[in-house]
């Protein structure tokens, strides 16, 4: 299988506020403390849009912005893959509530924000990026599916790809049927060449495996991994943070996993 270099990482979750501040925690050198997440502001959007976008959009844009700020590249030239299990449930909840009311007053803004590719659309507009972009879901396997799609896109086009994986807790009453314990978003800037100045070099297993997914030693971090589809990428982020040769087995669905080798 071809190599895939990680050039930059963006990260946002309770107790994991940005990649620089999180590396020691993920490498096991500092304890994980699930502190409340700082507010995300989506500074890349114009003020009027900033007020209109939801927490889900802000979360996705935050990590995309953090990753791109780590390197000197025009984000307008970078292909993107956005992966999320459930998309923007806050917006879908508002629409479904409106549909229970007389005359069903669905807000036009909520309707256009309800598409799964809303963060991708806002990102493209903010960055002036006309490059291809894909938005996908594979339920609890969304991190692994996003990583595969981003890798395939990077190799096919021999171009960098920014992968953004995010999920946000659902509002009541949907939350009773889909438990996402905390917000989690990660962005990986991927390069299809084994370039020197990199955080890690990944090798993806060509087929799904049946070996059990990695669990994390820290119980709070493990609760996050198991409780948010985007956080199912945490074992890989830990391997990258350790900066040693390692291997991560990521949960895909109840039967299969994806194995990823990471070397510095």
């Amino acid at each position, binding site marked *: *299988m*071809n190599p895939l270099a990680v050039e930059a990482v963006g990260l946002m979750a309770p107790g994991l506020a940005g990649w620089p501040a999180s590396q020691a925690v993920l490498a096991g050198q500092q304890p994980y403390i699930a502190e409340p997440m700082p507010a995300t502001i989506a500074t890349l959007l114009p003020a009027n849009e900033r007020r209109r976008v939801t927490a889900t959009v802000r979360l996705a844009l935050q990590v995309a912005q953090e990753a791109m700020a780590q390197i000197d590249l025009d984000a*307008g030239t970078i292909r993107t893959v956005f992966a999320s*299990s*459930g*998309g923007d449930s806050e917006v*879908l909840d508002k*629409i*479904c*509530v*409106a*549909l*229970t009311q007389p005359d*069903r*007053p*669905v*807000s*036009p803004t909520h*309707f*256009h*924000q*309800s*598409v*799964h*590719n*809303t963060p*991708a*659309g*806002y990102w*493209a*507009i903010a960055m*002036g*990026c*006309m*490059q*291809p*972009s*894909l*938005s*996908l*879901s*594979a*339920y609890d396997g969304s991190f692994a*599916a996003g990583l*595969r*799609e981003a*890798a*395939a896109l990077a*190799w*096919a086009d021999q171009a960098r790809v920014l992968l953004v994986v995010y999920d946000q807790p659902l509002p009541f*009453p*949907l939350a*009773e*049927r*889909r438990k996402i314990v905390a917000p989690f978003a990660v962005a990986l800037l991927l390069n299809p060449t084994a370039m020197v100045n990199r955080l890690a070099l990944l090798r993806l297993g*060509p*087929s*799904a495996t049946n070996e059990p997914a990695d669990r994390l030693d820290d119980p709070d971090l493990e609760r996050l991994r198991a409780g948010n589809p985007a956080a199912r990428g945490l074992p890989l982020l830990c391997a990258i943070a350790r900066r040693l040769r390692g291997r991560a087995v990521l949960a895909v669905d109840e*039967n*299969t996993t994806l194995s990823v080798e990471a070397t510095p």
Partner: protein
Amino acid sequence: MAIQPLAIAACTLTNALGRGVAASLDALRRGESGLRFCDFEDTHLNTWIGPVAGLEEEPLRGEFAPFDCRNNRLARLGLEQDGFGAAVRQARDRYGPDRIGVFIGTSTSGIGATEHAYRQCDPITGSLLATFDYPHTHNVFSAADFTRRWLGLSGVAMAISTACSSSAKAFASAWRQMRAGFCDAAVVGGVDSLCLTTLYGFNALGLASTRPCRPWDIERDGLNVGEAAGFALLEWAEPGDDRVLLLGYGESSDAWHMTAAHPEGAGAALAMQQALARAEIAPEQVDYINLHGTATPLNDAAEDRAVARVFGPDTPCSSTKGWTGHTLGAAGITEAIFVRLCLEHGLIPGTLNTRQRDPKLGAGLVLENRESVLRTALSNSFGFGGTNCSLLFGRGNI
């Protein structure tokens, strides 16, 4: 060098024109629309829709009962037509069930189940009915999950959800993931079903027409929401392959506006140019373009600019939305299969319902059906968020 083509080994399509590809071909030839005045559930909307008949009476049962919702009923109905299941079973024996990927486009998946659940929630606690099953119905992945389980496939699977380009982009993803070695063959498709979210949403945006939609017409005033399930089994083309082939794909982003297309169609033009470049085919070699052609005033104008810029005024093109309505996340697969039918049967469909072409539009619009030998044809799909995808198909051995 041109990309390695993918062959369509089998396909199936169910929409307002009927069950199976023959129903679509027959209606295209006869010029018979599947659109009717909106009578969906208890709506009171002055618009037209493209519904699939009979879904209300055909619930999913047994091991698939948790998936029961209009969208997965439609997926099942689609998967049962045209011998598609048998074709996938043969492919499963050849490639292995874990080596056939599943790439399904949908915009709203089974959100209809959530709409119903919210209307029936507990009046005191606000909780949803115990029977409501979020992961198997509402969640975006449900459409892909149902498809892979129904077909007995266990390889890579994902739902692509980029609004109305979703199931066109499924072809591009399948090509890439096969190329990467994540799978050796692919089931691509799209499933989107009528629901209150899209009907009232397009109405709120002022984009739903009160009449059957009229793409490129001087009086065009909006789209009609339709529903469809379509699937195709893709494998690498062999030398001398005489099947219909995916020769190229192009994807781009408008980077312009969440709902309005770029006025000059800059992103759309880029997608078409990249599909041509991947296939190493010149614009003048394209014999027919199936337009996205939703019949909203701005979308048609933007696509027209793009088509006219890339192809000039002579390449025959038409929108088939007057037959099916806009099937949203299933529009890409619907029109990819239409293009396959056109290539195989030498048919250029007209633009149903359109009477007087908007004189400001310059693309080579075809109003009436015509017979013609076709070697290559392009299909356009564009969506909210400024997402664009063009697919170029051709007959093998061209």
